[in-house]
Structure formats: structure tokens, C-alpha cells
């Protein structure tokens, strides 16, 4: 257990220090949201209708782009080899790394959501709903995106290819995240049903993500 918490603490510390780049994700999120009014026009009614979708897309892209470095930095300085050879099961180590990544790069996105909701003319309830769905949904994005990060490090190739591979897998999360937020704002649907499916998707990804990432690391590193 101490090894697990040590790994999580180490990853968070590295991500938050100079060169870690966790907070760049928030800056990217902000930039994407600011770009939107330029694309669709500064129509406040339209922006508040599109708001949840814009916030979800921004968060999806931000979490995807920061994931590229999840294993790459450790691979470059050799600590990934130590983790692979260590006594901790590789699946558990992958889960710990993903959790640390979510704490360092995913949580700040959710903290920034109220401010960005203000820019998109969302009221308190809508902003709260989007923040809550992001809180439930972004772990799923991190844990499925981890599979892409593991493939990227074994193939020495990241960027666009990984985005193409991982983005289709994140479609269910996007659908239910936006559906739950829209249910609060306009919808005839209840908030509960899509929100519980969103939580279920996160739980499923906790199981699949670490195993698939560990499998591709184990087979791919040499």
C-alpha cells in the first residue's frame, strides 16, 4: 500500500512541478472554450444552449492531449522499466498512474468549469450539472485514454494516431455526459438515468483500462 501511495504522490508531484505540464490542460480547455464564440458568433442564447456540449468537448480534448505524456516521460528516463520489473502488479501500477494523472490534470478542469460556464452564459444549476457530470465522467476518459498512452509508448509514436484510436472509444462517455447535463437544463429526461450510466462507464473503465494498458506495456516494451 505504501508503494502505491508513493507512486501516486510521486506522479502528482512531477506533474505539478516545472516541466510536468498538468496545468497546461486547463489553459488549453480555456482556449478551446474561448475559441467557440468566435466560431459560432457571440450569441448568448445560442452559447448557453451549446454550453454543456462545448464544455464537454473541451474537457475531452484537454484530457486526451495531456495523456500523451502519461508513460512517455517515465519511459524516457527509465523509471517505467523499474515499475514494470517491480513487485507491484503492473495493472495496479497503471491504475495508480492514471489516478495520479486524473488528480493532477483532470480535477483542475472541473475546478475551472464554473468560470468557463460564466463565459458561456450558463446559470448556476447548469454549471453545477456540467461540473458534476465532468466529475463522474473524466475518470473514464483518463482510464480509457491510458490504453492509448500505453500503445503510444510501446510504438514510440503518439499524437494524431493515438487521438484517432482513442476518440471513438470515448463516444459513450460524451453521449451520456452531455445527455445528463442537458437533462438538467432543458430535458424531459431525468438527470438520474444518464448520470448513473455515466458512473457505470467510469467503473467499467477502471477495470478495462489498467488491464489493457498493462497488457500492451508487458507485450510491447523490450
Amino acid at each position, binding site marked *: 500500500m505504501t508503494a502505491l501511495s508513493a507512486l501516486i504522490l510521486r506522479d502528482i508531484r512531477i506533474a505539478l512541478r516545472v516541466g510536468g505540464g498538468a496545468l497546461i490542460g486547463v489553459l488549453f480547455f480555456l482556449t478551446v472554450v474561448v475559441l467557440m464564440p468566435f466560431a459560432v458568433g457571440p450569441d448568448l442564447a445560442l452559447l448557453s444552449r451549446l454550453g454543456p456540449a462545448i464544455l464537454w468537448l473541451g474537457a475531452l480534448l484537454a484530457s486526451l492531449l495531456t495523456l500523451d505524456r502519461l508513460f512517455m516521460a517515465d519511459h524516457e528516463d527509465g523509471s517505467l522499466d523499474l515499475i514494470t520489473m517491480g513487485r507491484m502488479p503492473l495493472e495496479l501500477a497503471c491504475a495508480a498512474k492514471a489516478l495520479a494523472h486524473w488528480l493532477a490534470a483532470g480535477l483542475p478542469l472541473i475546478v475551472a468549469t464554473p468560470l468557463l460556464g460564466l463565459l458561456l452564459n450558463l446559470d448556476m444549476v447548469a454549471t453545477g450539472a456540467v461540473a458534476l457530470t465532468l466529475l463522474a465522467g473524466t475518470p473514464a476518459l483518463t482510464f*480509457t485514454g491510458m490504453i492509448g498512452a500505453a500503445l503510444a509508448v510501446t510504438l514510440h509514436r503518439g499524437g494524431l*494516431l493515438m487521438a*484517432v484510436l482513442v476518440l471513438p472509444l470515448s*463516444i459513450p462517455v460524451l453521449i451520456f455526459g452531455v445527455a445528463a447535463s442537458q437533462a438538467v437544463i432543458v430535458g424531459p429526461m431525468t438527470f438520474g438515468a444518464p448520470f448513473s*450510466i455515466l458512473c457505470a462507464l467510469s467503473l467499467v473503465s477502471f477495470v478495462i483500462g489498467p488491464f489493457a494498458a498493462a497488457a500492451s506495456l508487458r*507485450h510491447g516494451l523490450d
Partner: protein
Amino acid sequence: MTLIDLANPTRFLALTARVLPWLAAATVILLAIGLYQSAYAPDDYQQGATVKIMFIHVPNAWLSMFVWGVMSIASLGTLVWRHPLADVAAKAAAPIGASFTFLALLTGSLWGRPMWGTYWEWDARLTSVLILFLMYLGLMALWRAVDDPSRAARAAAVLTLVGAINLPIIKFSVDWWNTLHQPASVMRMGGSTLDKSFLIPLLVMAIAFTLLFVTLHLAAMRNEILRRRVRSLQMMQASRVAFSSELGTGSHQENASKGAA
């Protein structure tokens, strides 16, 4: 003859060389029968003659999912049993599956225009098949991005299996999201709702398309094996050329030093 006997590529090539002509002939005969029957199937009382698109559309749509299933089994073969031909099978199946998926989308869109009044609709079934198509393309991009086949094979195998788990999730999520496509009418509880005059040609076409896939898949696997042989021969030759030129410069330098002495 078990699966492990086929681990020898030469034996696999010999076997497929004998089987392939028969498979191709069976495919052609069944396709001819199926097309003849579909051409003479009665018109639908609502849809008229456009219902005949179904005989092409439905087998393509079935195979688009069937091929991902074949690729998933092959991926298990790569990761678990390390069968040498498993990754050849997975790699050869991806473009064929992508073509079936594309044809399902294309014929569906041509059928949708007269029936629904639109070529494309963000409906659950259409969207999930489109995502399947994107995933096929992603897999093919992955195969092309890495030059070492065994490394690419393991990465693609992990991704195929994750996709196999994720495809039902995508399907149900878009079902929830929006829907227009009709529900299943052939394989459902309580028997088929399709009339016999439609059902029989459809089943013949489905079997013919499955045989077509098997034929194309085996042929593509042969090509892939031969392509890998050519590649390793080329690499051997390249290394031989490099080695001999190194020897050549070495002896040349030796002569030069001798001359200087």
C-alpha cells in the same frame, strides 16, 4: 489437422492453395443463386422495388460485425496462444471488414434516401456503424504506422479486444441517444417477421457473403505471408550488400595501408 498444425506458414500456404479454388467456386455459385432469387423476389407493398437493396445491405451489415469478431479471436490468438498466423489473420481481415462496413453504410444511405427522405440521419444504428468504420480505419492506420510487424501485431491485438468490449457499449449508448432505424426483424425472439419469399434469398445472400469473406480473407492471408517473406528476403539481401561493401572498404583500406608501408 488441428489449428497448431497451421502454425507452419508453408503448410498453411499449401492447404489454402488447394482449398481456395473450391471456396471461390462455391462463392460464385451461391452469389449467382442469391442474386437471381433476390432479383425475382416480389416487391414490397410499401417500399416497392427498393426493398431489393436489403439483400445487399443486410449481409454487409452482418459481416461488418462478424469480421470484428474474427479479428478479436485472432487477437486472442496473438496475445494468449502466440499463434504465428494469428496476427496475419487479424491484419488481413481489417481492410475487408472496413470494406463491408463501408458498403453497409453506402447501401443503407442509398436505401434511406427514398424511404426516409435523407441520405444520412444521426440515428443510433447508423452512428454506431459509422463509429465501427472509424475504428476499422484506426486499426489499419495503426498497422501502417509501425514497420515492425510483431510489435504492431501486439498493439493492434490489445486495441481490437478493447474495441470488441466497447462496441456493444457504443451500440447501446447511441440506441439510447437517438433512433430511427428499424429494430431487428430476422434474428429476434419469437421468430422472424420477414416473409419466406424475402427470408430465403436473404439467407442465401448472407451465406454467400460469408463465403466471400472467407475466400478473400484466406487470399489476403496468403498475400500477407508472401509479402513478409519478400520483406525478410529483401532485408537479408540489403544486409548482405552492406556487409560486403563494408568488407570491400576494409580490404581497400588494408591495401592502402600496405601501400603506405
